C-alpha cells in the first residue's frame, strides 16, 4: 500500500470541496482498501464518507429510497424491501458474506471494481488498470469473464449482484456534484469497455452517490434473483438473473429480466422481455424467450458454457415465479 493522506469530511459540501485529482471516497472500504493493498488503486487522498448523512431506507411517492451509505446487511434485513422487492433482498443476501455485508455499502457496491484476476495483479498487463498495456484475459484464464458487451480491449465482468436487480427495476442514482444534484438511471451509470475500459461509469470526478431510488412497481413483489456459482455461498456469479413478472390470469402482462455474471455491465434483456410479454407462464415460453438472451454473446476459451447457462438461469428464475 502506498502512503496516502486521509480526511473525514462531515458534510457533503465539505467532501465535494476536499475532493481532488487522485482522491478516492471511502465507504465500507471492502473494495477500495482491498485494491489499495494490492496496489491496484493508488489514491493520494482518501476521503471517508461515513460521517455523511447518506443513510435511510424509506418508501415515498417516488418509490423505495436507499441511502448510499446504508450497509448491504441493513437493506437485506429490511422488511419493506423484502416484501416489495424480493429480488433486491435476494441479490444482497447472495452477495459476499455476512461480515462483508455489514461493512459494504449500497453506493460502494455499485462502484465496486471487476474481479478479473489480471486487473487485480499489477504484474499483469490490463487495459482497465494500465490503459494500452493489453488484455491477457482474452487468451488467458477467462472462465469467469463476460460474453456480452465485451471489446477487443476488455472482457471483464461487472461483479455487482445488486446492480443487476436495480437495472431490472429501472432504478436510478441521485448524485451530488460540485455543480449540483442530478439523477441518472443505474442502467446509464455504467459504460461499456469499448476502447476505454478504464472509464467504467459516468460519474464526474469527485461526484458522490447520495442514494438509490427504485420506482414504485407493485408487481415487483413477484420477483426473484437467481445466482449460479460453483459453491453454495461466498462466490461471485457465473450467471445470475433478476426477474419480475406481472402475472394476470396465467398471462405475463409485463416482465423485467436482467442478467449478471455475463456482461461487462449489469445486463438488461429487453428482447427476452418482449418475447415473454403477453404469453402464458409456461416452461416452453420461458425456454423460447431465453433463447434470445444470449444473442450476440462472444464466448472465450473457458466461458463457452455461459450463454447456455444464462438461458437456463433465466428459465429457472421464471419457473420459480410460476408457482
Amino acid at each position, binding site marked *: 500500500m502506498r502512503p496516502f493522506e486521509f480526511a473525514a469530511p462531515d458534510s457533503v459540501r465539505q467532501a465535494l470541496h476536499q475532493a481532488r485529482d487522485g482522491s478516492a471516497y471511502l465507504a465500507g472500504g471492502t473494495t477500495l482498501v482491498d485494491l489499495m493493498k494490492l*496496489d491496484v488503486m493508488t489514491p493520494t487522498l482518501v476521503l471517508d464518507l461515513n460521517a455523511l448523512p447518506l443513510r435511510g431506507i424509506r418508501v415515498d411517492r417516488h418509490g423505495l429510497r436507499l441511502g448510499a451509505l446504508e450497509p448491504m446487511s441493513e437493506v437485506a434485513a429490511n422488511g419493506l424491501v423484502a416484501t416489495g422487492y424480493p429480488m433486491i433482498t435476494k441479490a444482497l443476501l447472495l452477495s459476499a458474506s455476512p461480515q462483508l455485508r455489514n461493512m459494504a455499502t449500497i453506493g460502494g457496491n455499485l462502484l465496486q471494481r471487476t474481479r478479473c484476476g489480471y486487473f487485480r495483479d499489477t504484474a499483469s498487463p490490463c487495459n482497465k488498470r494500465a490503459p494500452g498495456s493489453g488484455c491477457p484475459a482474452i487468451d488467458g484464464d477467462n472462465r469467469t469473464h463476460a460474453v456480452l458487451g465485451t471489446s477487443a480491449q476488455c472482457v471483464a465482468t461487472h461483479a455487482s449482484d445488486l446492480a443487476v436487480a436495480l437495472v431490472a427495476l429501472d432504478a436510478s442514482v441521485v448524485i451530488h456534484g460540485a455543480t449540483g444534484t442530478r439523477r441518472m438511471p443505474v442502467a446509464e451509470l455504467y459504460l461499456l469497455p469499448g476502447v476505454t475500459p478504464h472509464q467504467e461509469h459516468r460519474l464526474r470526478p469527485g461526484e458522490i452517490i447520495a442514494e438509490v431510488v427504485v420506482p414504485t412497481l407493485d408487481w415487483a413483489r413477484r420477483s426473484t434473483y437467481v445466482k449460479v456459482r460453483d459453491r453454495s455461498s461466498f462466490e461471485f456469479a457465473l450467471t445470475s438473473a433478476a426477474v419480475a413478472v406481472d402475472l394476470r390470469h396465467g398471462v405475463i402482462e409485463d416482465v423485467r429480466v436482467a442478467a449478471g455474471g455475463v456482461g461487462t455491465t449489469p445486463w438488461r434483456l429487453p428482447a427476452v422481455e418482449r418475447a415473454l410479454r403477453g404469453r402464458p407462464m409456461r416452461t416452453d415460453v420461458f425456454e423460447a424467450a431465453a433463447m434470445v438472451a444470449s444473442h450476440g454473446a462472444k464466448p472465450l476459451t473457458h466461458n463457452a458454457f455461459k450463454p447456455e447457462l444464462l438461458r437456463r438461469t433465466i428459465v429457472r428464475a421464471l*419457473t420459480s415465479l410460476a408457482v
Partner: protein
Amino acid sequence: MTRSPVGTPVRRVEGRLKVTGAARYPADHNLSDLAHGYLVLSTIGRGTVRSMNVDPVRAAPGVLAVYTPFEPPPLEPPWAQDPTAGIGYLQFPMQDKEVRYHGQVIGMVVARTFEQARDAAALLEVTYQRRTPNASFADGVPHATQGRPPVDILAAGTGSIDEALARSEVTVTATYTQHPEHHNPMEPHATTAVWQGGHLTLYCGAQAPLLRALQVAPAVGVDPARVHVVSPHVGGGFGGKVVAYPQSVLAASAARELGRPVRVVVTREQLFTVTGHRPAFSQTVSLGADRHGRLNAIKHDAVSSGSVAGPYFGDPADWSRTVYRCPNIHLGARVVPLDVPPATIMRAPNEEPGSFALESAMDELAATLGVDPLALRTANYSTTHPGTGLPWSSKHLDECYRVGADRFGWHRRAAEPGTRVDGDWLVGMGMATLVYPAARFEMAMRVAFRRDGTADVAGATADPGTGMWTVLAVVGADSLGIPIHRIRPDLGDSALASSPLVPGMLAGAGGSTGTASAAPAVRAAAESAIRALRKHAVEHDRSPFHGLSVEDVHYRDGVLHAGRATATFGELLTATGTGRIEAVEATGQGDEVTRHAFASFGACFCEVRVNRWTREPRVARMTCVVDAGTIINTATARNQIVGGIVWGVGQALLEGARVDPASGRIANANLADYPIPVNADIPPVDVHFLSYPDTVFNPLGARGIGELSTAGSAAAIVNAVYDATGIRVRDLPVTMDKLLAR
C-alpha cells in the same frame, strides 16, 4: 478405578487456549527488536534476473536489509539437492539468478515493521531476460518420463497386463484428470528466528519439529543440536508443513546477519508458489473382469506433474495395489517436469488422486455390467494385500459396506441413472471404498510422575489440528490410570525428542502415523515409568515401602499398594523429596510387517443433488463407516473423518489451480478464485466407527485416520453425480459447465 477415556469423546485439552487466542503461533512471538522479512516473487515463468534496482527500496522507511540474487543471504545448499530425498527444493532462494517458475522467491526486504517491508518491496524494480516457460501439463502428458519403474503383478502364465485385459470378458478404460491442488492451511507458513550465542530458535509451524531442525541446520551451517524448533500449535499442515520452505531458512539467515530476531510470514497469495502443492494428474485406468464383475486385470497408469526445481512427484497408481483382489495388476508412474514450483505431499498424497481414478473406473465397470456398484466391490473383496499376498492384520471392510449401506439407505438407489427428481433437483447416490495404508514410525515419548500428583507425557511430535495434544493426554491417562486433567501433555518442540533421530524420519504428524506412532510409545514409557516408580518406592529410605521387594509393590490408578500400605505417587514423591520419576521409551514397527499388511478401511456413501436447470452439483448427505482399529478419541477422530470428507468435496467439486500455460502463472492464486468448500457446501456427515482393535499393529490397536476419508470420498461424489445425471465427468472439478450436456 478411573474409567479409561480411550474410545470416548474427549474435548481438545488445548482447545481453550485456541478459542481464547492464548495459543501462540509462530507469528505471535513479538520479541523485542523483531524485524520483518517480506518475500519478493518473480513475475515471469522462466528466465534470468538481469537487474534489480534496490536503491529506492533501501531508502524506504524502516528498511534494514535487502536480499537479492546479487546480494544473496548466505545459505548452504539444501538437503533436497540429493534428488533421492524425494521431497523439498533443489535450490535455495537467491543463490543464483535463474528464474525457474512464476512466483519464485527472488528477493526479501527486511524492515522494522511488516508493512514497511511490504511497502518497500513494492518499490523493487526487476528486469528479466525472459524465456518461454514449459508449464502446460496437458501438453506434456504424451511425453512424460518414467517416475519409477512400472510394477507388474501377474498371474502365472500371463505374459503382460495387456494380455490379461485382452483375455477379460469385459473391459473399461478411461482417463481421469485433475489440476494441482493447494493446501492453504488456516495459518500461513511463518517463521520467527532468534539467535543466541550460536544457538538458533525457530518458532515455526512444523509437522515434524525435529525434521525441521535437521533441514534448517545445514542450510545455515550449524549443528542440528544448536537448532531449537518450537512449534506447539500448527494452524493446519496437511503435508504442507513437513518441508522447511524458504521462510524458515531466510528468517534464520537474516536474523544471524542482522543480529536481531527476524520473522517471515508468507502471505496467502504467496503460499501458492512459495510452499508446495499437490501435482496435477492424468491417470488412465483399464479394468478387465468377467461377466459377474470379478476382476481379472487392473492397469493403472498415472502421470504426475513435476517441477524442474524439486524432486517430488505423485504416484497415485500405487493405491490400486491395496484395494481389490485381482490376479493381474499393473502400476505405472510417469512424470512431466515443468517450470512450476516444487510440489509436495498433501493429505492422502497418492490415495486421493488414485482412489478418484480407480473408484470412478469401478463405477464405470458396474454401469457397463449393469451390477450394483456396492455388489461389484464385495465381489472383489480382498482378504490379503493384493500387492504382496500378505494377510491383512485386521480388516472389517465388509462390515463397513454393510453397515454403511444400511445407515445410508443404499437400497433406495434408482436402477437407472438420471431418473430420480425431487422438485428442482436431480438426485443421485454414489459410493466408494476408502483405504489408507497404516504405518508407524519410530517415536520416543517421556512419561514422568511428578510430586504434585500430575504426570508429564511429552515427545517431539506435532499437533496440526489432528488432536495429538489430547491423544497424549488420553493415552497417558489410560496407561497410568489417572484422570486426564492430571496429565500434562507436551509436544511440538524439537528439544523434547529424547532419542537421536536420522534425517528423513518424520517423527511427527504425517502419513496418518501420528497417533499410531505416539500412542504405543506413551504406553511403553508409562510402563517403564511405573517400574521406575516401584523401584524408587522400595529403594528410598523415606518411602513407606522401603525395604520391600519390587514384586510386592503394585501400582494401580496412580496409587502404590503393598499389603495394607498405600500411597499415591504424589505422596510417595513428596515423602522422598523427589521432584520426578521418569522414563523414556521409543517404539516403532517390528517384524510384524513381514507377516501382515496393514491399512485402515472404510466405506463412503453419498447423495448428490444437481439442479435440473442450471446443473450445479451439491452434496446432500454422506455416510462414512470406518474400520481403523481402536479409536482413541471419538471426538477428534470424527473431526478427522469429516475433515477428510470436506477435502473430498473440494477435490470433487471445487478445487484446482489453473496454470496459465503461456506464463506459468497460476491464474487463481488466492482464496477468492481458488474455491474451497464453505460450510454451506458441507452436508450432514454420518460417521460411524467399527472400533475393532488391531493389536497386531500396535498394543493399543489404533491405526491412522487422518487421511482415510480423503482416499475415496471424491469418487463417491463423482459417482453420485453420474447417478443423478447419467453424465460421467472424468476431469475434476465437476462443475456445472460439464453437466449442461443434457
